[in-house]
Each structure stands twice: as C-alpha cells, then as structure tokens.
C-alpha cells in the first residue's frame, strides 16, 4: 500500500526542485514556473494529508491555493509583459538598477 510518507516525500522532492529552479534560472518566466512547481507540491501535501485524515479541509485549501495561484500568474505575467516592453528582456540578472 502506498502510505502518507510516500506522497509527502514526492511532494518534498518536487518542492526542492522548484526551489532549485528559482535559485538557478535567469528567465523570469521559468522562475515563475518553478514557483508553480512549489505550489503544486504544497497542494499534493495538502491532498495527501486530507486523504489520510478523512478530512476535506485540505482539499478546500488546495482549491483556494489554485485560485490564488491563477490570480498570481495573471498579475505576474502582466508585470513581465510590462517589463519586457521597457527592457526587451526577461532575464532577472539584467534587472538590477536598484541595489546597495
């Protein structure tokens, strides 16, 4: 039988991959996708817990996370579009006019 920990370990791996993506990629859109990966791993954790606890609250939480993620993506991509208009790039390490 597949236990809770199997799901959690999978979620942990996906989360760590997401974090690594944020830390290593330059392309803002890819960074953003890595964050989506992290959120998915959180969702998986929630659903797994909910399943093994016979509770639906976790699934509701996932529902809200998805909604918020959708909103975040919409705003995030809009920001990326507006920055691309000005700078013609989506690479985050080209965006450091403000520092120190």
């Amino acid at each position, binding site marked *: 039988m597949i236990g809770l920990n199997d799901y959690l370990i999978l979620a942990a791996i996906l989360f760590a991959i997401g*974090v690594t993506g*944020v*830390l*290593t*990629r*330059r392309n803002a859109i890819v*960074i953003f996708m890595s964050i989506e990966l992290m959120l998915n791993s959180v969702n998986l954790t929630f659903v797994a817990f909910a399943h093994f606890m016979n509770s639906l609250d976790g699934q509701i939480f996932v529902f809200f996370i998805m909604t918020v993620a959708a909103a975040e993506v919409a705003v995030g991509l809009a920001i990326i579009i507006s920055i691309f208009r000005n700078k013609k790039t989506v690479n*985050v*390490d080209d*965006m*450091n*006019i*403000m*520092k*120190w």
Partner: protein
Amino acid sequence: MVNELQEAAQNTITQWAWLIPLFPLAGVLINGFFGKKLSKTTVGLLACFTVLCSFLLSIACVAQLAGMPVDARRVIVDVFPWIAAGTTKIMFGIMLDPLSSVMILVVSGVGFIIHVYSLGYIENDPGYKRFFTYLNLFTFSMLVLVLANSLALLFVGWELVGLCSYLLIGFWYHKDSAADAGKKAFIVNRVGDFGFLLGMLAIFWIFGSLNFKDIFHTLEINAAVTPWFMGAGTMPVKTALSAATPILGLPLVTIITLALFLGATGKSAQIPLYVWLPDAMEGPTPVSALIHAATMVTAGVYMVARLSMLFALSSTTMMVVAIVGAATAIFAATIGLVQNDIKRVLAYSTVSQLGYMFLACGVGAFSVGVFHLMTHAFFKALLFLCYGAVIHSCEHAFHDAGSHADPQDMRNMGGLWKYMKITWFTFLIGSMAIAGVPGLSGFFSKDEILWKAFNAPFSLTIGGFPLGSILWAVGALAAVMTAFYMFRLIFMTFHGKERLPQNAHPHESPPAMTIALIVLAFAATVGGYVGVPHVIKDMGINVGNESFYKWLEPVFEPAQTIIAEGGALEAIDFSNGGEEVGVQNTLAAGITGLNFAKHGQEGIITPEAGNVAVAHRESENEAAATHSEKQSAHENVALEKKLMNISIVLALLGIFVAFIMYNRNPQIHHDIREGLGVIHTVLLNKYYVDEIYYYTIVLPGRVFSEFFLWKFFDVCIIDGIVNGVALLVRGVSAVVRRIQTGVVMNYALVIVIGILAILAYYIF
C-alpha cells in the same frame, strides 16, 4: 481670612509658571509661520518681547516663591498626564523650586539681553528671521529643561536645546567648517545622550516614576520599590540602589549616576566629550554667548545638581565628577593659553569654567556650583558679547579696508580700546571677574569652589596629600592660567601696537549692543554679592550676604545630609556580600569641613540596619559637628583666609605675567604706566625675566600644550576617536550594503539560507 486670601492670591502667580516657557514658544510659532509676512523689525522685537515676558513672569514667580515658607518652596504644576505605564503616570508639568528659579532667571534674563544684543548684531544678515526663530526656540527649550518636573521632560528639553544648538552652530551653513562643527557637536552629544537615556531608563525601572517629586520622596523616606532586576521583589530603594552590578562590582547607583554624568559631560563639554564646544564657535557670536557659554552648556551641571540626592549616594561618582571637573578645568586652561582665535580662547575658557562647576558638584558643594554657574553666565556672556562687538566691528572695518585678515585672530588687532571704549571697559570688567579679582562676581564663586575642593570629603590620598588639596592645587593653577590668558587677550586686542590692516577703522557698536554690554557688566560686577562667603564677613568686611546659599539650601539639604552620613550606602556596597561592614565615617566631612573628619567615629552596621543606624547617628554627628565647628572655627577661618589670599595672589600673578609678556610696547606702557606705575618699574628692571619666563615656562608649556595637548591629544586622539567610530560604522555599512546585489536570485538564496538555518537548528 485675609491671610488665606493673600495666600490664594500668592499662589495664583506661581500656578501660572508654566506660561514662562510658552511665551518664547509663541514667538517661535508666530515668527516661524508668519515670519515671511512680518517686517524684520517686528520679528526681532517680538522675539525680544516674548523673552522679556518670560523674564518678568519669572521674577514675579520667584518673588512669590520667596514669600513662601522655606519648606513649601516647591511648586509643582501638573498640566496633564503624559506617559501612563503601569500604575504610575509621568506628569507633563513644571516644578518651580529655588534651583529652577535661579535657572529661569538666568536663562530668561541673560537670554533677553542677548536677544536685544542680537537685534544689532545680526541686523544685516539674510537669515535674520530664521535666527530669531531659532533663538526663541532655544529659549523655550532651555526653560522647559530647567522647569521640567520630571526627568523625562528634562530629557525633552535636553534634546531640544541640543537640536537648537546644532541648528545654530550651522547657522551659516554655507561655510563647510560650520556644517562640520554642527556634525561634530551632534555626534559627540549622541554619546552623552546615550548615557543619559540609559540612566534615565534605569531610574524609571527602579523608582517606577520619573517625576522628580516621586524620586526625591522615595529617596528621602527610603520607600519600598520593586526594582527591575531579576527576581528582586520589593525592597527599600537604597538597598536596591546598592545592589552590586557586574560592571566592576560597582553598586547600581554608581553605574546610574555615572551614566547620567556621561550625559552631562556631553552637554557640558567635559573630558572626554568636550571636543565639540570649541568648534561650536562657528556659530554667530550671540549664539556662542547664550548657548555655548551661559545657558545650554550648563545643563549638565543643572542636571547633576537637580539629581544631587542620587549623586550624593555614590561617593565614587562624586569623586569621578570632581576629578573630571578639575582635570577639565586645568586641561582646557592650558590649551587656552596658546590659542590665537579669540573665540577659541573663550571657548576653552568656558570648558575650563564648566570644569570648576563640576568640581564644586563633585565635592558636594552643589550650591556653590550653581552659584558659579550663575556668575559665569553673567561674565562669560559679557565676554562673548564684547568680543562679538569686536569681531563685528573688525569684520566691517577689515571689509571696508579691503583686507582679508581674519577678524577673529587677535594677532590682527591691538590698540582697539580707543576705538571702542565701552566695549573695552566692559570687557575689562568681565575679564577681572573671570580672573578672580576680588570684589567681582567670579571671585566669590571661584574662591568658594576652591575652598570646598580643599575640604573635599574624600578619604583618598595621593602621594600623602589628600585628594582635596590636590583638587585645590589644580583649581588654583587653572585660576592662574585663566587670569593669564584672559589678560593676554586684553593686551593683545585692546592694547599694544595696532596691528590692524591699513585704513581699517573699527568703531563702537550700535546702542542695542552696547546697552546689553553695560547691563551684563553690571551683573558681572554685583552678581557675586548675593553669595559672599561668610569668611569675608568674619573678616569684618560686611558686604553682601550669603542669601544665595540660604536660598538653595532646601534643595540641596537632603544631598548634604547623605554626604554628611559618609556615603553610607556605598560603604555597604563595597563589602563582599558580607553582613557587616565598618563604615569609615572619617569620610564624612561634607559642608562642615575638614574639622568634622577629625571628630568622626567608626561604627559597625549591618546593611539592613544601616539606614536606621545612620539616622540614629545623625543626631550625634550633628552634635559633634556643632561642637567641632565651634572648637575649630577660629583655626578654620584662618585657613580659609590663607587660601583666599593665595588665590588672590595667584589671580594677580596671572594678570601680571600676561602684562609683562604682552604689553612691552612703549606706546601702551605709556598708557598703563599711569595706572600701574610700580609694576611698570618692576617691568623695566626685570626685563630679562620676560625672556626667562618665556624660555623656561612659557615656551615649554606652549610647546606642550600646543603640540601635545591640542594638536596631538585634542585633534588626533579625541577627534580621532570620534571620527574613527563614525568612520568604522560607515565602513561596516559600506560593506554590509553590498549584500544587496539587486539580483532576485541572490535575494531568494538569502531567504533559503535563512530558512535552512532555522530548520537546521531544530532538526539537528
């Protein structure tokens, strides 16, 4: 019935004492907000008028206060509750007692004169309106400081006067040196404020209040408090104050008072935090007179005097205060010997005189310290204003003559007396007052300080001499130097060969300025007669009286009692946690003088019983004191007379040396000869003495003070430390800010590292 009515009528005026600071505040608001629409004259006159109102109301209030019975002379007007924390509330209000009454008279009185003087001085400056707004703001802040009924409100005034000082030092901000001086004053004062703040918070957490009334009351009855340190529970306040701290095992009260004293050294320019004051002379001269000589810099002395009860509890702190005061007095005086910038001489002289005030406070003679504060306010304000007049007129004269000579450098002057006779004469009075020429105000206060220092209640001896006599010697030496450099100043500026640039014709200042000078000269002359020491009366010269000391007596009496008890509190603290200690009552001398120490007795008390025992012994002591006083009164007076004669001789010696060294010009000899014929003969005969003086005493001294004390110690070490700390913080800052690379991934990495660290702390 009639009496009651009278009393009610009497009280009404003091009940309005809180208006005193509000008049200048009104001036600030009106001039600050509508100054642009008002004419220059209106602004200036309004500023003067508001301060005059404060002065008149102060006089009325003090008169009322004097009419009250001695014990009732403390009027507290709570305007509204300020900070409510826990059960006690800090009230926002004023406290009028003999000490603050002296201060408000000095502040508003001298302040008013300087306001009037400024009407003339600052007349053609584009910052005229700004200047008067700041000056009013300062007067308001200073009055708040001295009238504050709580340490917190005092701190408010403390910070505000600091701010005003800061703004006024940099008044001519287009000069880089002015802006730098402002910065320096600011940084140095922060160090002091840090100490003040810590001390204040510690007091709050022990006493549960910052109201002076509560603090004094708690101390007087040794009430039970719940102090802040761990698991202490409720205990008598003196036990709490005597708790040993980890810092060198010193008792808490010593740490607190030392922290407060650090604040005082910052504001009152004492070693090690004096460096800002000479630089502060970059401000306009009336500012130097009002803020950096007469009033604000004495705030530290006022604070120490105000908290005299607390300071008296720690003989260590008292000793530190006295030693720092004496050291500053001599140290600043030596530097003053060689400066050529007039204002710098006066600035170092101020530092030196402030040192005297702390010396007085340190040896327990708070009222003498305050007395010197007052007389110093008169004569130092006078001196500054005179030199303001000199500089003012030289500046214009030099300018008209097309010269770029420095109008503050006395080497560019000489022989000015005939151009500005009033200024010369008033300056002479001021100089004689500060030099301690008998009959002028400075003599009475300085002499009394030296006498008290000689009788300092310290058991410490250095090389067989009691600390007191060393303090006296240092003070006396500084007095010689004071007399010397002041008269050097006079001779180089007003007498001797004219070294003015060609075609420069200085002239007397406008009447607004000269009137101010005359009034102050009058005050500097007669101001001392309110506090003539009784020894003079004993000598049969029945001038003036001791009313000043009597007036302040109720304020300092508790502190004197504590000192007379021989620092019982601290004697307990120094025991190594033991139950019983011997109280060296030989420490106890206090106001009654050396003789008291001889008749002291040794007692064994336990900490708990300490206060009881002390109280019990108090009556015995008093009896003993009276007895011994009678017994040795004669001997005592003789000693005091002797010391007084020494100091008179010393003052004259200083003047004399200055005269010899700086007045060799025949032209001036001629002028002086008529008044000082005998001395002139001596001068003629001992012409080579001048050279001997010069090469044996003056030159080495000059090299020492100029190159070591001033250039090396002052400029390198003290400035170096101040700037170094600032530089270090900035350097660290410049490195730390580099973390902020501007790249998102690095920021994310820092977040991840943070989270990893937190989790690792719990997982592993």
